[in-house]
């Protein structure tokens, strides 16, 4: 993927670039707002990673300008502020996701992948299929290998998120935000508990495993090779 990172801290930027490059991405760096604005408006990127606090031009101002210019590239905002209002502000300015510093690289990678996979426009599929697992989002039914699986509402949401992001890693934080709307980290590992229950229903006794735990990162739903 081709990524643009707008970050003024040279060391942090270099570190992020290295990590993203190692993950197979092409990375352009902009160290200040105006440069970032020019690149964002001129080049085509898959995802833009934008620091909220920049010298010269505020990250949110760049975001608004870029959106006003009709650029629809997904934008991941990075911030040192973790307040509720900060997140809402960022999303209102046209951001697609929000990550509070400091963050784990695994988290950043997972979120970039999730953003890049977003279906363009509002055309969201209502029938999802991964290997022999199918989900009808409207009828709220799930079946594997033709056999109906009964899920609790929250398990259904969890599986829907995994299926929409199949083949990519989703982190626990992403799941907390998307499924429970929790924008903070509870001390209890509720994601793992719910995941193990979901797994018991989806994978247990069905030959191949679809839900995989990715150590140090999160989970991945993928079809067996």
């Amino acid at each position, binding site marked *: 993927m081709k990524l643009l990172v707008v970050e003024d801290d040279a060391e942090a930027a270099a570190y992020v670039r290295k990590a993203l490059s190692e993950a197979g991405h092409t990375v352009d760096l902009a160290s200040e707002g105006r440069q970032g604005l020019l690149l964002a408006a001129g080049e085509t990127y898959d995802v833009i990673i934008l620091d909220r606090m920049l010298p010269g031009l505020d990250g949110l101002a760049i975001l608004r300008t870029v959106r006003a210019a009709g650029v629809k590239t997904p934008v991941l905002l990075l911030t040192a502020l973790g307040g509720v209002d900060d997140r809402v502000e960022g999303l209102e300015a046209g951001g697609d996701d929000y990550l509070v510093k400091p963050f784990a690289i695994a988290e950043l990678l997972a979120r970039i992948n999730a953003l890049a996979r977003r279906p363009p426009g509002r055309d969201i599929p209502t029938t999802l299929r991964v290997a022999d697992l199918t989900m009808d989002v409207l009828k709220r039914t799930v079946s594997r290998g033709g056999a109906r699986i009964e899920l609790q509402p929250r398990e259904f949401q969890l599986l829907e998120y995994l299926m929409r992001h199949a083949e990519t890693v989703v982190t626990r934080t992403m799941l907390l935000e998307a499924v429970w709307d929790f924008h903070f980290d509870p*001390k209890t590992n509720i994601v793992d508990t719910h995941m193990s229950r979901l797994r018991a229903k989806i994978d247990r006794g069905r030959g191949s495993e679809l839900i995989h735990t990715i150590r140090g990162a999160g989970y991945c739903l993928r079809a067996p090779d």
Partner: protein
Amino acid sequence: MARVPMNKANFRSSMLVFRSTSVRLAALYTAAFAVAVVVLGAIILITTRAALSRQFDERIRSEALALGQEFRTEGLSGVVQAVRERDRTPGALDYGLDGPGGRPLAGRLAGIATPLGWSRLTAREGSEREGLRVLTTDLPDGHRLVVGDDEERSEALQHTLIEGFAWAFIGVVALGALGGFGLSAIVHRRLSAMTEAAEAIIDGDLGRRIPVRGVGDDLDRLAMSFNRTLDRIAALMDSVRQVSSDIAHDLRTPLTRLRQRLEAGGDGAAGRAEAIEAALGDVDSILETFAALLRIAQIEGGAPRAAFRAVDLRRLAQTVVEAFAPSAEDADQSLELMEGPPAPVDGDPELLTQMLVNLVENALRHGGAGAAVVIATDHVDGRAEISVTDNGPGVPQAERSRIFDRFYRLERNRSTPGSGLGLALVAAVARRHGASVALEDARPGLVVRIAFPARTRGTLGFGNLPESPA
């Protein structure tokens, strides 16, 4: 040499008195009073003068009429006699009676040819009089009567009046100035005491308070308000100081551990990887503490009610119970929501959710295996309430007031993991919502009861409730 600046300072401070608000007010008040006295005096003078001259003329006219009557009843000799008699009486008016052709018959004013009607006679030769106001009337048979009065008589009266007012004016100004400046000196002294206290506080004497005289007047009330403000600021500064030392203390332990771990490194590649893993764990817990502190600060410092909307506490509780019940079950604990009515409040759903999560996690953590945690909502008289009850060891009465403090941890929990910030965040969220937090004994266990104020929107409708994430 050294005296010069001191004198200067004295001069400045005495000049300061004249620049004080109270002195300016006193001067203004006195001036307004003086103007009022002058205007009043002028009005009285003008009306008195008019009344006096009317009275004057009336007296002259009635004398002329009386003498004319005399002429008709007693004849010329009677009038001559009457005029002569009056001329001899001291303090009487001046008269003159002329016969036909201007022949003087009697009276001091006889023989002067005055025009008929009112006229003014200037001083005659040999007379000490300034001027006379005279009325000339015709009598039968060509006789003519002149009656006049000394104008000085009315002027003297007016002079007395003016003089009286002049004295009154001086008296008013003097009294006003004296009273005003005296009062302002008292006010100035008290204001100076306040200024002095404020200056002392600016210079760092934070314990200083503004003196209160105890008479309960407006200045006293102002001083008391200031003192309460200062008390509040002092308390806040104390808490900031407390928090900084708490942070220093509570972060030093994990930072020291981290340092030791990094220093020890680890043997071989596997050992090193393990050490790095452990070090990352340490850093994460430090960052978590920071994030929690920052969040509490943001909640406490945020504009109240900024992001408030209609929230049903019961719906939030359902989400939380549903999220945490499986983990609780896995740990041989139970978490349930009691039957109850919806509990609508105006609030920030995200903060309220976090508050509830912290209470639940706290109850489950301290309850240990077998813990049974029950959430209940209630809604009475427009006030919503939510309580979290556990059957754990509870909190000793003596420690209850402190468990919501930052970094406070019960003695018996010092060795278990936890930042000591979870309940501080609960308290901060409750404060932001104007809700009260009460701790009760569940025998055994603890009840944390959070009571919200009545909603201001006045509706119990749920039309504007946020979509539940389900």
